[in-house]
């Protein structure tokens, strides 16, 4: 029989005090460091003061709160609401958004196949007040964050309008500021998911962001010849 040498037990009092200290240390470490950093739960405010809460994605919620506080930016279109045939400018007008006289809408089509756990971000360059009609759908639900970065104010000033798992979204969008406006999609399933987006609006350019960084992409109007169907470069 193996005898494990263990120091003589401490007194009951010493053990209890020690355990109380262990609980206190654990609780303090949790409340001040771990919970703010991991979950954004910050009862003492120390996590925010130390900058830990940003690790928890708390900032995302701030962005969403800021974006959703805006009115007259996103006008969702329910599937039943769209007539069989319509133009983007009709849809924009239907949502009560005025187009500047003589405005020439640009059209674009974006197709992308998201591999498992892959993400892609698509952005349009829109000036403040510029409208855009868009409609995208995916073959399976994807995680999406529709958000915009202003040119002034940096990443900090990001605003999110919709975050969630969806397989389609149609709306008229009116840019709340000069900047880039669009979507981050992530496939959180084990199967590849094909994504298609069509948009028409007063945008002046388009960008994609992937693991390799930022890429300018030319607009690819739907039905504008054989090249249009190939969509933007995948990487």
């Amino acid at each position, binding site marked *: 029989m193996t005898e*494990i040498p*263990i120091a003589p*037990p401490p007194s009951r009092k010493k053990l209890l005090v*020690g*355990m109380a200290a262990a*609980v206190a240390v654990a609780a303090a470490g*949790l409340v001040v460091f*771990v919970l703010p950093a991991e979950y954004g739960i910050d009862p003492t405010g120390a996590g925010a003061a130390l900058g830990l809460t940003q690790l928890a994605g708390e900032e995302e919620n701030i962005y969403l709160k800021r974006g959703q506080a805006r009115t007259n930016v996103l006008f969702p279109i329910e599937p039943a609401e769209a007539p069989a045939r319509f133009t983007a400018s009709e849809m924009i007008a239907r949502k009560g958004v005025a187009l500047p006289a003589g405005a020439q809408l640009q059209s674009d089509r974006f197709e992308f196949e998201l591999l*498992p756990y892959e993400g892609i971000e698509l952005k349009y360059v829109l000036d403040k007040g510029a409208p855009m009609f868009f409609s995208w759908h995916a073959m399976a639900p994807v995680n999406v964050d529709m958000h915009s970065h202003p040119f002034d104010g940096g990443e900090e000033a990001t605003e999110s309008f919709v975050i969630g798992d969806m397989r389609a979204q149609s709306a008229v969008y009116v840019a709340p500021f000069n900047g880039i406006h669009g979507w981050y999609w992530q496939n959180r399933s*084990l199967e590849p998911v094909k994504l298609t987006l069509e948009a028409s609006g007063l945008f002046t350019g388009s960008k994609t962001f992937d693991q390799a960084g930022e890429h300018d992409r030319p607009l690819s109007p739907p039905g504008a010849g054989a090249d249009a169907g190939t969509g933007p470069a995948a990487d």
Partner: protein
Amino acid sequence: MLTPRLGWLVQPRMLLLLGLLLVLLMPGADAFAHDISEADRAAVQRIDGPAPFPFLYLGAKHMVTGIDHVLFLIGVVFFLYRLRDVVLYVSMFTIGHSLTLLGGVLLDTGANSYIVDAIIGFSVVYKAFENLGGFRLLGFALDTRLAVLGFGLFHGLGLATKVRDLGLSDDGLLVNLVSFNVGVEVGQVAVLTVVVALLNWWRATRSFAPAAFYANLALMAGGFALIGYQLTGYAAS
């Protein structure tokens, strides 16, 4: 006069604590949330068919960077100085976690990972309490080997959850799963080598006996922190 006053800084005890801290901090940010990282997950999902070495590596990496398993192992071997005892207790742990790792994945049984990980945190508290002499003080006589085996079952359930999160393809499942399990044992041996060597070195010094109490309190605090972390996650999910 200054030298003797600062002498405690270069005591083996301090060096050991530093060494332990380094080992614990090595995985960096991964240490606390030692989920299989997103990049590993994406890589695994491209694997279709048997791939023993990637899975062996992931199993070893999970063990070495998993602070909960490491703390429990430190607790288990804390007072073991004979190699035979180390092997006996670690075998108990290995049998326990292998059973539930293989069984959990093959039978596809689901368990809430927060609850399982909270129990793993509790296993650290339990072992520290035993090392502190708490059970002898209470007049309990529990068979430590059975306790290590029992908690090993929960550590295996936790491992099984992590493997299932990887989303393994059915093609080559058994080979990959066994490779992961072998990797866990390789990682465990790597961790134990460092821990047992440091403990043996420390145990030979006079500072061990008085400081062992506090070291186990620190282990216990780590276990409590893991429990709180996981239960909060459960409540928030």
